[in-house]
């Protein structure tokens, strides 16, 4: 337990160090290039750094509050993400009760099941029960207009925003021999690797980016950014093996899987935004667009990371 705490403290000190350096760089850039807020890229960078502080502090508070704190934090993330998602999908009056159930019944139950550590029902509650019951609630109103589209979109919203997202705090429920009391560090590993991968792809792309990797989906993503970001985030993940139950090579491989899933998750979510004709999912976080804009890569990598860890390392 004390090992977990000292590792966590080292990690927190490291993250604060990185953020302080980033803030100083952001400040210098602003003084040099954008003294009156005219340089959009610098302003955006500083807004991002500020939002990072808020996120790190929120996650830190949740970690200090323990399991309940983490569950409440991610429960609210699911709620806010679902709100952003449902705002953009096709809904009709007839879906009112199904949507109300998604927000006020499905979200609390999913996180309650995590709290109760009922893995069996937790892992099928949304794919089976919500999947079957939500269309039943909708069909009772008798409105068949675009019915399949409507029920499919609601299910997709639940899978992404609630089911997948809840696999981040689900890491706390894993029973890994020799790793007792340290599971919170698995969440830190996942979130740090995914988020750094996003940032590093952005940085490498800005520095060297020439060849667009997916011009129709995400014009700012480049091959150079992708390769540089994935490699450097994988190396950082390898370097963080000491906070995980993995050996360095294993940590590196898992970091590679996480970053790849995160990258492709970002592409999928971009495609949905394009389809819906919006630039951002919302505007919850200044400089970051909506919550889903920041969570998309975590959401795609969390369930895979959870299951790989569960299969190979957990009891």
């Amino acid at each position, binding site marked *: 337990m004390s090992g977990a705490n000292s590792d966590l403290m080292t990690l927190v000190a490291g993250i604060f160090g990185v953020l302080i350096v980033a803030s100083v760089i952001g400040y210098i850039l602003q003084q040099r290039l954008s003294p009156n807020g005219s340089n959009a890229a610098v302003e955006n960078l500083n807004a991002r750094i500020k939002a990072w502080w808020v996120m790190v502090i929120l996650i830190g508070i949740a970690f200090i509050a323990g399991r309940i704190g983490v569950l409440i934090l991610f429960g609210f993330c699911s*709620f806010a993400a679902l*709100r952003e998602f*449902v*705002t953009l999908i096709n809904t009709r009056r007839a879906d009112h009760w199904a*949507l109300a159930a998604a927000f006020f019944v499905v979200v609390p139950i999913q996180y309650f099941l995590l709290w109760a550590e009922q893995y069996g029902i937790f892992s099928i509650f949304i794919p089976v029960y919500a999947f079957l019951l939500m269309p039943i609630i909708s069909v009772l109103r008798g409105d068949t207009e675009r019915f399949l589209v409507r029920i499919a979109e609601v299910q997709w919203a639940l899978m992404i925003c609630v089911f997948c997202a809840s696999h981040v705090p689900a890491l706390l429920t894993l029973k890994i021999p020799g790793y007792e009391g340290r599971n919170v560090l698995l969440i830190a590993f996942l979130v740090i690797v995914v988020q750094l991968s996003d940032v590093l792809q952005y940085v490498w792309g800005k520095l060297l980016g020439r060849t667009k990797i997916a011009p129709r989906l995400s014009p700012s993503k480049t091959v150079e950014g992708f390769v540089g970001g994935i490699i450097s985030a994988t190396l950082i993940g390898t370097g963080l093996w000491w906070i995980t139950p993995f050996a360095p090579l294993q940590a590196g491989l898992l970091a590679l899987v996480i970053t790849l899933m995160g990258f492709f998750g970002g592409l999928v979510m971009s495609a949905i935004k394009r389809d819906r004709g919006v630039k951002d999912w919302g505007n919850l976080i200044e400089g970051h667009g909506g919550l889903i804009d920041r969570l998309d890569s975590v959401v795609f990598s969390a369930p895979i990371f959870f299951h790989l860890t569960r299969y190979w390392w957990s009891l």
Partner: protein
Amino acid sequence: MKALPTKAAATVIVLFARAVTAVRAVWPEGGLPSRPCVYYANHSSHGDFVLVWTVLPPRLRHRARPVAGAEYWLKSWLNRFIGRDVFNAVLIARDRDKRTEDPVTQMASAIDAGSSLILFPEGTRNQSDARLLPFKSGIFHLAMARPDVDLVPVWISNLNRVMPKGEIVPIPLICTVTFGSALQIAPGEDKDVFLERMQAALLALSPNIVGGGE
């Protein structure tokens, strides 16, 4: 100074509105007028004025008074408390025969007293497929009575999906309140021309419909 219960109720209502709708305001280039003005908005839900009120900066919010139908907002104790005490609504009688006061006079004197108005010129909640119902003439007569007052178009999007008519549970969805640049009535402007111009200015703020393609 407002009494404590009404202040507390106002805070609770604002927090609730923000929790459900994560409402965001979009401001016009030059900002909002600092003197008393008329915010006129599309109307699809009883919560419309709450959203406009919620996003206004505090110094402008304190003097903003919704214009609402007396019949509805005097109906029960709760309606009276919210409409009259919390939001200090300018309550106008819909029924011409039962009127003791002229609505235009009521609105004009509220402006004279330093208040801004939140007005829904469609006159009733829009339950139709049209994006906007034809405006009633009240806003024209108000503009004639106070020709120098700024008229600020305000488009409220998505609130009708949060709580459609007849539903009791709100669905959390992100709402946007978009403020346009202020307009004024032109000297000698014809009623129909004026109303047409006001409607066009409001519709120009409505985003392309995403989701909720009903």
